[in-house]
């Protein structure tokens, strides 16, 4: 009797290795870019403990937190997209498309513009982002429910409508803030330039905790992709699992948005490409999305720097939207021809 094998293990490891290699190469390149590039030799010297004090400051204090931020935010946004697509059984769901990133941005903007009594700024901003993000998700979801079921089109439309409305409020807040908030404009376009080790001390624990919870529930997520009834029949406590997953993705999305602004389309593009490579099993999709998301943002950060001129470094959100927008349209077009999900 020939034995069954777990499908796709070797492929998974090979792809993971390739993604990690790419991440490290572009992370290294990224360490050499601030406003202008340093040579690889200089970066290497600094990493080995040498280099001039100026170069050490640039590489370790300015560039390193930015690259680390790209890694964690990329991982977080990609996995949030993967979870939402599975939960809503919709290949086009992502924090950006469903407007929940905008919700987080509104919370964060309020946190930045107004002083919240008794809570330190570093905590208040992501906390408000979380509250508004979760509220927006609930609003979009309930708007899209028609007679007890959610349709793809209504979900996307409610997300886009709510997202546009909330973005307008954020723009309004940005406008009345005037010069008071230097950098809020950059933030609202999605930019890693304000990354610091102080910010990372909040971002990393939240994202790592979120990723851990989501990884733990990836089997349940598989069952829920078949439908709630299937999942219940397989022993999944659907209501509780869904709530835990929504809280985890909301936390991950909102902490990212609070510190780097709205970086769109990562959660759409990455899980989709990963699924094309390894199939729909979330036990592969989730871990690979973590690393592929990290690689993607590190690469986009590199591109943002490489294409920046005298005006300054381009916000990374522009790059991800330039790549993600056409990809979204491609998905929409393809959906008309096939119902299946690759």
């Amino acid at each position, binding site marked *: 009797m020939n*034995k069954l094998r777990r499908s796709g293990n070797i492929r998974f490891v090979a792809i993971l290795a390739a993604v990690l290699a790419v991440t490290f190469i572009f992370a290294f390149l990224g360490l050499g870019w601030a406003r202008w590039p340093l040579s690889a030799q200089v970066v290497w010297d600094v990493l080995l403990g040498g280099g001039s004090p100026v170069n050490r400051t640039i590489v370790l204090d300015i560039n390193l937190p930015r690259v680390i931020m790209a890694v964690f935010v990329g991982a977080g946004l990609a996995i949030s997209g993967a979870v939402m697509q599975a939960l809503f059984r919709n290949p086009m769901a992502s924090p950006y498309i469903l407007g929940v990133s905008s919700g987080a941005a509104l919370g964060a903007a309020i946190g930045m513009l107004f002083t919240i009594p008794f809570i330190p700024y570093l905590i208040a901003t992501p906390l408000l982002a979380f509250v508004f993000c979760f509220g927006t998700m609930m609003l979009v979801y309930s708007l899209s429910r028609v007679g007890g079921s959610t349709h793809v089109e209504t979900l996307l439309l409610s997300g886009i409508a709510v997202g546009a409305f909330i973005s307008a409020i954020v723009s309004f807040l940005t406008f009345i803030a005037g010069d008071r908030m230097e950098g809020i404009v950059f933030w609202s376009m999605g930019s890693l330039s304000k990354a610091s080790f102080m910010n990372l001390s909040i971002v990393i624990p939240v994202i790592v905790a979120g990723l851990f919870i989501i*990884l733990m529930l990836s*089997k349940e997520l598989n069952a829920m992709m078949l439908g709630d*009834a299937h999942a*219940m*029949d397989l*022993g999944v406590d659907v209501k509780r699992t869904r709530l835990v997953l929504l809280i985890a993705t909301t936390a991950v999305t909102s902490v990212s948005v609070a510190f780097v602004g709205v970086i769109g389309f990562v959660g759409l593009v990455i899980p989709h490409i990963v699924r094309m490579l390894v199939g729909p099993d979330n*036990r592969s999709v989730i871990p690979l999305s973590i690393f592929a998301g990290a690689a993607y943002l590190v690469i986009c950060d590199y591109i943002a720097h490489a294409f920046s001129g005298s005006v300054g470094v381009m916000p990374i959100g522009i790059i991800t939207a330039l790549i993600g927008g056409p990809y979204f349209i491609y998905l929409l077009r393809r959906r008309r021809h096939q119902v*299946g999900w690759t």
Partner: protein
Amino acid sequence: MDMIIDVRDLSFDYNRSPVLDGVDLRIRKGEVLGILGPNGCGKTTLLKNLNKNLQPHGGCVMLDGEDLKDLSKKDIARDIAVVPQSNEIRFAFTVQDIVTMGRMPFMGAFSGETSQDLGIVRDAMERTGILQFKDRHINTMSGGERQRVIIARALAQTPSVLLLDEPTLHLDISTQFDVLDLVRRLSDDEGLTVVIVSHDLSMAVRYCDRVMMLKDHRVFALGTPEEVLTPENMREVFNVDAVLEKDARNGRDTVRIFGSCTGR
């Protein structure tokens, strides 16, 4: 005969209107039980209460002497497997992926399937005749093939009870027989307890040891097909003019339906 599921005075409401009202039912170990009734009589609701997909508003359901209320969904899924009414799956999972999900109730959060799990999965695919399809994508398969995959998944749960909700609804006629022959064989060979919800009277006679008729949210009749499927009961519950008669070719009982009773 031992009983495995004991439904006591079960009530369930949807938006305050009763769907089930004081249902009592003892399901015996190893039997094939048919739950019959017209559309909307609460058959599916009853089935969903049997594995805690819905929770009773009154009364209780006991599994092997334990109240389902006190068992987790995961515990229940180790004993009770379900073949749901709709099995349309839009995602490109392979057949093996889907059948392997049947082992979920036995796995921990970070553990994958063991070689023992894979053995059970293989066995389930073999018994349902889908082993040669194991690498095909579920979203490219026909309704009948998908039904087999879902039955294989249910078998991979190594359940003692199998619940089927309208298992033949979207199938070709010949596939309907294939699927039910398979289920009957599993019960005969392995002592699996099977509960089939259906409105197909001929199917019930052919495959069920006992049948139960639901009407007006309550148990209307319960017993062997001969006892329950009388012309009076069939008229009362299904509004059809029908008789149970012996098939001249093989001497088996069969239902002959002459037509609706409306207007007669």
